[in-house]
């Protein structure tokens, strides 16, 4: 156990948790930020995806001690980034969501993709999104929404 500072969605947070505790559980159970989801705990499903310095990572596999000073972005904060907002809007326009449980992770993976690859092709989408399972099978619309967001204008 040790006190540590985390930078989450632009805010500084102090937590006092075991070093090897995965970031996922720090977010959900200690900080009450429940938008990030638990699905498998073994890097198989992507439900727990967050960004560290803009890169998508599986928070169930990221010991909090390894985060360091990197900036954490979660689903609660992704709408403040231009690509995140664009992805969220495309998700609504395409009516992607079903049960929604996987969608925090899908949106985090998709917005990281778009930030580095503004015009992803199908192969880019496959590579970036194949780690995210959707049990409801919303994949067809996820692909369409990513393409729509890539085409779309910046929201004002």
């Amino acid at each position, binding site marked *: *156990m040790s006190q540590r500072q985390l930078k989450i969605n632009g805010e500084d947070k*102090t*937590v*006092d*948790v*075991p070093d090897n*505790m*995965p970031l996922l*559980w720090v977010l*959900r*159970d*200690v*900080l*009450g*930020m*429940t*938008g*990030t*989801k*638990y*699905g*498998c*705990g*073994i890097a*198989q*499903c992507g*439900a727990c995806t967050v960004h560290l310095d803009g890169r998508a990572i599986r928070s169930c596999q990221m010991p909090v001690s390894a985060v360091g000073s990197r900036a954490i972005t*979660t*689903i*609660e904060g992704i*709408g403040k980034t231009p690509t995140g907002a664009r992805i*969220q809007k495309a*998700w*609504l326009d395409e*009516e992607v*969501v*079903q*049960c*929604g*449980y996987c*969608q*925090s992770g899908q949106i985090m993976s998709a917005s990281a993709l778009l930030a580095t690859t503004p015009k992803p092709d199908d192969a880019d*989408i*496959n*590579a970036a*999104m*194949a*780690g*995210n*399972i*959707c*049990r*409801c*099978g*919303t*994949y*067809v*619309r*996820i*692909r369409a929404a990513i393409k729509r967001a890539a085409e779309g204008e910046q929201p004002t």
Partner: protein
Amino acid sequence: MNATFKDSIAEPSRRAFIKGGVAGGFLLAFHVPVFGGINEPNQPADDTNGKFAPNAFIRIDKAGKTTLVMPQVEMGQGVYTSVAMILAEELDADYSQVTLEHAPPNDKAYGNPTFGIQVTGNSNSIRAFWKPLRTAGASARAMLIQAAAKQWKVDPSGCAASDGKVTHGASNRTLSYAALADAASKETPPKDPPLKDPKQFKLIGKPQKRFDTPSKVDGSAVYGIDAMLPGMKFATIMASPVFGGKVSKVDDTAAKQIPGMQLVIALDDMVAVIGDHFWAAKSGLDALKITWDHGPNATVSNDAIWKHLRDESAKDGVIAKSVGDVKKAFESGEKFHAVYELPFLAHATMEPMNCTVQLKPDGGCEIWLGTQVISRVQQTVAKLLGVSDDKVIVHNHLIGGGFGRRLEPDMALKAVRVAQRLNGEPVKVVWSREEDMRQDVYRPVYRDEISATVSDGKIAGWRYKISGSSVIARWLPPAFQKGIDIDSIDCAVDQPYDFPNLEVQYMRVEPPAVPTGFWRGVGPNNNVFAIECFIDEVAKKLNKDPIAFRKSMLDKGPRFKAVLDLVAQKSAWGQPLGKRVGRGVCLQPAFGSFIATVIEAEVDEQGEVLLRKVNCAVDAGIVVNPDTVVAQLQGGIIFGLTAALYGEVTIDGGRVQQSNFHNYRMLRIDQIPSIDVHIVHSGEAPGGIGETGATAGPPALRNAIFAATGIPLRRLPIDLDVLAGRKQPWV
């Protein structure tokens, strides 16, 4: 140290509450109706005080806030939006301003007309509630109009309602529903209020944005697993991995070293670990040395289960349906025979099982979870606690995948048993994915035997025997009559084709040890698979085109023919394809909808199956929200294809061998073809949709593989070794 930590828990918890209220503002920003009141624990779920509350579904307060109470739960199937559309349509409410609320447990007010209890399942929300909801809306509208007419001293027939207002055209006067709420409360609900002519529908049939979506893209949606209470403890559990086993001894020496691990609770059949957070609880559980008393199921294996099913299925079953003279029919013609087998399946809902409980000093409790059966949760928990039902308060939530798994109350009962060992603190019990997969109620193994005789190019005699577990017999005993499981024979007794002589037998066979449950697509999955595979095998032997052969036996089924024609056209049926590429068709009558699906697939030399294209034509009668029909079929087909390609739970030593997504695989985005859904607007009564795709996928894919390779697979999941020629097909 500890104190700091506790503070940091309590504070964000309070914030988590407020978040539910703030969510509404975000929604408004997207110009969709406010979706509030879902997870505020202290909100009375069904507050009718001072409101116009003409029935269980509608509340209008004096400020004009119109609340629609949802008898069916939202699991991603879009039912909240469809139910709201139906109510608002007949009520003539201002749809952009309505608020939705989960129904509280109350079988009398919100029971599913098909089951008599509160159930969201069997794809029947719209079918079962279509008339009651329309009537509820129309009756409230009539009362509002009466109230306005009285106030104006005019004949109600001269008044009309729209967008939350009543207008008297002749005098050009208008009153809002808010202004009329009080007076309308005093009106008597009319007996048979006139329903709208479908031609007047303003909402129904027009694509509407879903209510639940905005909160699901910004992380503010609250599922059961997200419940947060001040002072809450976190727990995880492990039940005996061998079905029916007991805890014998628990050594917690190592677990005690885990920071944040608080308490180990050994119950009769399971162990729970309490911690400061899930991670501490899970690490603590992993560090325990548990000795189990495995009990009588310790030797149950897959082989034994299949042998049992095969032996039992050889016996005579109960005749579920008999038409014509099957015996005589089989005295002539060309004979066909095949057996199909389907495996155990897990639900693997994306949100693992969970339940939060707070015991109350009066002996009752409060519960937070997402369930398809809220009143059953209430009743079974009350029974466990030995209190009356009203002492158990259940807060329902958005559901991170139901698929039939949340038709069971077990996660609530287990959580309550854990809470009973605490000192009244609230506790959130979250299952690990491994626990979720190993303590499921599994889609049963089935064995289906079909014989047919063919005369003049058509099937003249048909014998079909279904053997498998009866979930109904356990879950709704009164519905299990005379040895027949009505779900298991669904789509077998009402199969689409004109067979002049037909016999359907049902043989209940319960697998040793393994608990069985409803799984998206239920009985139709099994029956449509066997029937549609068999039809293709017969067509091939007779050298007939699979769609043409089906159509030749559909003289009494114009709606079936229509969807087959449409899907044939959209899928370019009959156009040449490359080597090892095939198209397969599936026709199904399931859940009151008429659906034909064509899948195009390629099988490579290694046996790998590449999905190339899916087309689906659906006649679901009057469609409430067309986009939901498309979405449910797209998703459902993927759900079914996942099972066809990978789904199999196997048993060894009385325990489930699969544990997580690495050995219970899911289709992923890089494997998904285009899935085009084509709606036929027949104007008939609404059909069900939520489960139909799960039924459609497997037979269509299997028939595509049959067309591509000539190999008639008769078991699922699809065996790549067989497709690669490394192994003989199972027959």
